């Protein structure tokens, strides 16, 4: 394996002592861009151009070009506007943003400030997953330090520009990672996705135009502007620039968060994270979080970690939450756990997801208990198909994709349970 270059953007200071402190950040070029903006040396249009040049795509999972998203907002429109950062990362296997907030919160703060400036926001909110107490403390600590340093608040550094940041700790619901449910939750309401349109860019937080970006996306912005969009674009591949943070988990020796360049071979990432544990073989990979399709080992051969390559191999980059499953994994049990997750986390608002997720779980659960029926496989395929595309938000689809992909690649394991009442690993 060639040397894999790591930690060039979001995790660049993670190795330093007290990396979350403003002193460390300032000593490493922190807030330089922000000061430049306040001095009037960098216009919103220039920033958007640079971000477009960087070819950065939204890191939350959908991969929407960030520069384009920002250009939807009219910064001169009257009334309040908001920038919201989505740090809810609650999808099983996802923990890449956690390390940004733990170790490099000031870069995120600066990124949010820059984004806020570009869209003309009066304030920004960072919605942090409810269980992330340490990241929450680090982020609010960073806000306080920035405010103390005069980088945040009223009339920042005499520029006449007012902007403030707030952190909102979630209540522990997966659905609040969906951007409109997230907005509802900040507003103090029950976390349920809104029907779109209207989109947040026209009717967002408190009914005002709002831009929502992922933590990693926003934390990348200061570096893009410091080193140039071209530098960032060149790190990646043709269709997606920059580095990408991955949360690697599962049956590996060194699970953790890794930042590598977009387009790094999957094999390199696997080696970086210590390889499969207990000298076992790879069975399957869920490359982008539990809502992306599972891929059998043979499908990931030669795959590189970027949108196009993973899509070609049959799945999705998602949020970069790579879950490694070794050869001893019982896919029926795995799916049972995943269907339970979606059943538990459905917000209950729209019919197919509320009713369908529970149905899928119950059928898989029954199969795993050895009480499956021959028609169950067809039933599961149909139920997941009936959820797909008929719901308000992505959760329904996210619940259906694992069921479809597990059955596509591992139907024989389900059949074994149905026919023999036990796993393929059990003695019949």
């Amino acid at each position: 394996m060639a040397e894999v270059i790591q930690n060039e953007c979001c995790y660049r200071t993670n190795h330093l002592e007290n990396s979350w402190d403003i002193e460390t950040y300032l000593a490493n070029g922190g807030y330089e861009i922000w000061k430049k903006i306040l001095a009037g040396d960098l216009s919103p249009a220039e920033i958007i151009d640079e971000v477009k040049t960087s070819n950065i795509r939204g890191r939350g999972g959908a991969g929407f070009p960030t520069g384009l998203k920002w250009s939807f907002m009219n910064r001169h429109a009257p009334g309040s506007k908001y920038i919201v950062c989505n740090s809810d990362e609650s999808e099983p296997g996802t923990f890449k943003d956690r390390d940004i907030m733990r170790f490099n919160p000031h870069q995120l703060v600066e990124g949010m400030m820059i984004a806020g400036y570009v869209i003309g926001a009066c304030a920004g909110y960072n919605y942090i997953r409810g269980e992330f107490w340490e990241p929450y403390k680090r982020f609010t600590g960073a806000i306080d330090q920035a405010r103390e340093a005069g980088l945040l608040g009223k009339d920042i550094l005499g520029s006449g520009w007012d902007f403030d940041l707030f952190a909102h700790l979630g209540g522990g619901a997966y659905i609040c990672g969906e951007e409109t449910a997230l907005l509802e939750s900040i507003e103090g309401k029950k976390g349920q996705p809104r029907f779109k349109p209207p989109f947040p860019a026209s009717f967002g937080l408190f009914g005002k135009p709002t831009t929502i970006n992922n933590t990693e996306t926003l934390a990348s912005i200061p570096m893009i502007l410091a080193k140039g969009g071209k530098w960032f674009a060149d790190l990646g591949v043709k269709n997606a620039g920059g580095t990408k943070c991955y949360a690697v988990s599962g049956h590996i020796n060194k699970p953790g968060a890794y930042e590598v360049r977009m387009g790094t071979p999957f094999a390199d990432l696997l080696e970086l994270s210590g390889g499969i544990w207990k000298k076992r073989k790879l069975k399957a990979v869920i490359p982008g979080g539990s809502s992306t399709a599972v891929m059998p080992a043979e499908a990931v051969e030669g795959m590189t970690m970027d949108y196009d390559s993973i899509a070609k191999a049959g799945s999705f980059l998602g949020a970069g939450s790579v879950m490694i499953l070794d050869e001893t994994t019982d896919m029926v049990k795995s799916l049972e756990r995943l269907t339970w997750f979606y059943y538990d986390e459905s917000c209950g608002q729209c019919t197919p997801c509320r009713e369908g997720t529970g149905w899928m779980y119950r059928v898989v659960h029954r199969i795993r208990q050895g009480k499956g029926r021959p028609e169950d496989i067809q039933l599961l395929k149909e139920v997941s198909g009936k959820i797909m595309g008929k719901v308000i938000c992505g959760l329904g689809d996210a619940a259906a994709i694992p069921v479809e992909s597990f059955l596509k690649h591992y139907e024989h394991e389900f059949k074994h349970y149905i026919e023999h009442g036990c796993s393929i690993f059990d003695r019949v």
Partner: protein
Amino acid sequence: MIKIEINGQMVKAHEGDMLIDVADDAHIAIPRFCYHKKLSIAANCRMCLVEVEGAPKALPACATPVTDGMKVQTKSVKAVAAQKSVMEFLLINHPLDCPICDQGGECELQDVAMQYGDDVSRFSEAKRVVADKNIGALIHTDMTRCIHCTRCVRFGQEIGGIMELGATGRSEWMEIGTYIEQSVISEMSGNMIDLCPVGALTSKPYRYSARPWELKSHHGISPHDSIGSNIIIHAKGNDVKRVVPADKESINEVWLSDRDRFAYEGINSEDRLTAPMIKENGKWRQVDWETALQFSADKLKHYAATPEMMGVLASPTATLEELYLLQKIARGLGVNNLDTRLRQQDFSLDSHGFVKPELKHSFAEVEKLDATLLVGSYLRHELPMLNHRLRKAQLAGKIVSSINTEKFEINYEINNEVVADDLLAELQLVVDALEKPESNNIDKVYKKIASSLSTAGKSSIMLGQISLMDVNFTKILKLTSDIARLSGAVLNVLPISANDVGAYMVNFLPEKGKNIQQMLTTQMKAFVNLSLEAESDITDGKLAIEAMRKAEFVLNFSLFDSEIQREYADVLLPIASFAETAGTFVNAMGTKQSFKMAVEPQGDSKAAWKVFRVLGNMLDLEGFDYTHSNQVFAEVLENNIETKNELVLEKIDIKIDKKKSIKNKTPLISIYEVDSITRRATALKTASKAVSETIIVTAPVQEVG
């Protein structure tokens, strides 16, 4: 206008209209549960999924705005597959207990399932069970049947103005409920029964008493307030089983207040008087109609010899025809002591003329009023549907102010609220603020009220029942008319009862005789009472009963028997309720609404207009040969007998003693005790307890001088 194509049919539409509305207008059926034309769009049931050309997924018609040239298929393979998928999901956890469900036969889920559901379920797991909640006397819950359409939740948020029901929990554990156990008691809560597309929320009083297919529908007009809500009376055989709203956009839209919905229980009360009764030598006996009427006619002829000593009182909940005929009898006998103003206490202006109860705006116009000042009114309880219109105005940014003797719970923000014992002093300050806007001695709130009325395009002052019942009504009237004159606002003395306006129209007024106060305080020899219970319907009930006791002869046309009537009356004649007679009510804005008989009168009771017709003839009076109530109505319209003596306040000088502070608190009439029928509605009575325990504060009449 743009053109779109639905199932190959060209349909014209306005750009941005929702597809479901466009399809509805074109009579193209799209199944739906969560969508309701009067509520916000939730798009959560997904039943209305249709295929739109160019869209990769099926789209919900309720939340898809139409665009020019859009091509929609509601019955294509893709659309129907989507609809059937949703139907299957909706049914897996639904108990399918239709045979024991009150909604059966009028259930939206049942109807749609007939078309889109399968005959056999593939769901073989255990179904969800949800514990029922006790949410009071009006609505029964079977929450296992809930399909989470959230119509009831949105109703509370958007129409009722009180979020009585909400959704807690997520996924399959999502439940509709009150969160903390409590009764649902807002004055419009019963509408949630109609909104619920399944049998989760059903009417508690009606529960298990009939099946929809056994019921006959009769159009009616609600007699409990001056809105004149259009209702459908559902009867099984000759029994009124329930009342539901009829769509009437200009009046009650699609809603009904709880009072109008549940008061029907009163007409089935055991108290109903079902046979004529006369009292001779202190003993009551049941007689036939002929005997009773002959007896009454003889007595009336006798007392008509001294017509100034006979009083005729009627409830303003009587029909136009009844009031017209009764005054015709009275005036035929030379009796001019006529009154329906049972709640009023201050009659000092009668010699100058009569106050015309009238809402000078249509209900729809009320929504557009730029500024409104409520004076002495708990509008939410007096006229729930008018309050609903005013609420819409306020939510749309219009200004609503109030000057009241109590702090009331209102379901919207009162922009400028004044609560004080002395209405007169407060009103005077508004007058001052209008006369001297520059003055620094006037508190901001009065200036705000004054300027809201004078600067607004359309502004209105509404005097409610508390003003009407105030012992200083005349002075309130004077001051508010000053405010109206100075600000350009329209002054309305709100009609409260179903036929306040009708009573005025047929001149049921003491033009040349004594008003109710004079009748009760001067010794009358005889009283004729129509549909009223003196002890409760007249503000000073004690005084009224005293006067009745002292009278030599009292004839009551009454729906109900009661101990107290038996004590003071001499003849009790059973008459028909609003469901059992034909008639007309004239509502607050002057709309005359006639209705037909829905069921036969109970027992031996008879429609009052028929009784008056016979009685008129027995008294040898001219012109009582009607064969149909329509003829009476036609006569009312033909012979305008409305008083020529309307009060013109500008012409009268009323002195208001500024130094003398007058403290008085007017008793409020409980929302569910406004007339003899509502007082006997069992479920409302229970609900009313819950209401009075939480909201209503009543105080005795007292004058501090």
